[in-house]
């Protein structure tokens, strides 16, 4: 626990010590705000549905960019040898890195709170879907992060890590979409529909905190973090 916190602090510090963190946050906010306001004045609707519609796609680019360097860089520079010969357990390092990147994405997301605030001053807002949307975004971000972190440990190159993480996240996102489901035999539809990242996000956005969605995200994150700790062990063979 203590080791995890120390790793967490170190990783977070490295994020914010480099200008990349600020460029990330600014890019994320500029992009998501633009997508929000683009339709906001045309539709004239006081809701954030469009915003949360775009979030999975923005995250698809944004999150792998956050995770790509977390392991790939350690491997490239060789600091992984220092890190893993310190008296720390594999899972402590993985959790520390995950929580640091999770906090980073949460900070970026939190800075978009100006949007619901704007809505609040403009008129009557139904906060249920908005809160549900943010909760969903947290879980979705966590799932993307866990995938990206795992991929980063397999790749030696950051660009490769980025592309594979984005592709894998994309694949997991769309397998629950109707277009994919339509091509599958009926017996597989419920399984794929449950496994898809997107369906659960939409479900949370309705403002209903369904335990099935929460369990889905938590176990998906847990699964990839577990794979990550196992793949750390594989360097030894």
């Amino acid at each position, binding site marked *: 626990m*203590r*080791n995890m916190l*120390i*790793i967490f602090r*170190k990783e977070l*510090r*490295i994020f914010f*010590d*480099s200008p990349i963190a600020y460029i990330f946050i600014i890019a994320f906010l500029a992009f998501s705000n633009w997508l929000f306001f683009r339709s906001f004045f045309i539709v004239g609707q006081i809701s954030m549905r469009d915003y949360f519609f775009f979030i999975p796609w923005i995250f698809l680019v944004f999150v792998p960019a956050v995770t790509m360097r977390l392991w790939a860089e350690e491997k490239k*520079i*060789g*600091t*992984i*040898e*220092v890190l*893993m*010969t*310190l*008296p*720390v*357990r594999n899972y402590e390092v993985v959790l520390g890195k995950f929580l640091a990147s999770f906090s980073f994405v949460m900070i970026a997301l939190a800075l978009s709170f100006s949007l619901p605030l704007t809505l609040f001053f403009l008129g009557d807002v139904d906060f249920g879907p908005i809160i549900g949307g943010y909760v969903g975004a947290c879980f979705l971000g966590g799932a993307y992060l866990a995938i990206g972190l795992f991929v980063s440990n397999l790749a030696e190159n950051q660009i490769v890590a980025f592309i594979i993480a984005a592709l894998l996240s994309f694949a997991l996102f769309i397998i629950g979409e109707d277009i994919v489901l339509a091509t599958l035999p009926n017996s597989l539809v419920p399984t794929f529909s449950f496994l898809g990242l997107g369906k659960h996000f939409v479900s949370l956005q309705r403002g209903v905190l369904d335990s099935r969605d929460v369990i889905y995200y938590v176990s998906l994150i847990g699964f990839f973090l577990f794979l990550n700790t196992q793949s750390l062990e594989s*360097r*030894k*063979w």
Partner: protein
Amino acid sequence: MIEAKNLTKRFGDTLAVDTISFAVNKGGIVGLLGPNGAGKTTTMRILTCYLTADSGTATIAGKNVLTQSLEVRRCIGYLPENNPLYTEMGVVDYLKFIAQIRHIPRKKIKPQVKEMIEVCGLEPVLNKKIDELSKGFRQRVGLAQAMIHNPAVLIFDEPTVGLDPNQIVEIRELIKRLGAEKTVILSSHILPEVSATCKQIIIMNRGRIVASGTPEEMSSHARGGGVVTMVVRGPVEQIKDKLKTVKKVKNFTMQETEGDGQTRFEIISTGEENINEDLFRMVAENGWVLSELHQETLSLEDVFQQLTLKES
């Protein structure tokens, strides 16, 4: 303090470390010597729990690297090859991070970091980020990182690579001081470095240990003894015949015939002492003239080359 038994490590088809065994006693500096690709780094990585051996066991301070990995890592300070560092971090931040994760009590972190800064001479670069540092200072940061928790065992993989001669001398002095109370293993392919700092040398080649011992032992054991050079004036064939009868002569070669009838011989002794006296007597009894007689001990360079070139 450190014991390795039959360690073997294979990467695909290459046998990086081939059933090596060695023991290192507490205190003192051990040099792991060998050409590039001899298996030094792999051996060190096994000892530091970064890699797992395919077979064989290793213990450090009585703890098994496989089953008590965390305990082993606690009592080791390690400077990996090429000294990797978190270049985005500041010098002090980096050392603080290492101190924290090494579980140095909170109150002691500051004094300990301060001490490391003094010991390693990092005062001039305190407020800099690591990527702004010169190679020499980076190396010192790496050493400070390895020593901050006052470990009983220090493992340095090529600690002086890329440093200028003055820095090399400084680092060597530092390592020598450390060797007074700690067990230090360092690897190198630079011979003078090892002969200058180490009490015990292990020479590796192609994954195997080809020799080990003190620098002096190594020199005298090579070729089974010392080499004597003798220059005599006299009839060549008779000298050759007589040389064959001297007991302590294992083998000899006639080097060259110099002008005015002098002949130079290179004689390899059987390793017993006082071969010089026997040779002198032989020359004197026959009434020849001896103009040169000296014994050479092999330098570590010769030993190293003999051992490593022979096999490859």
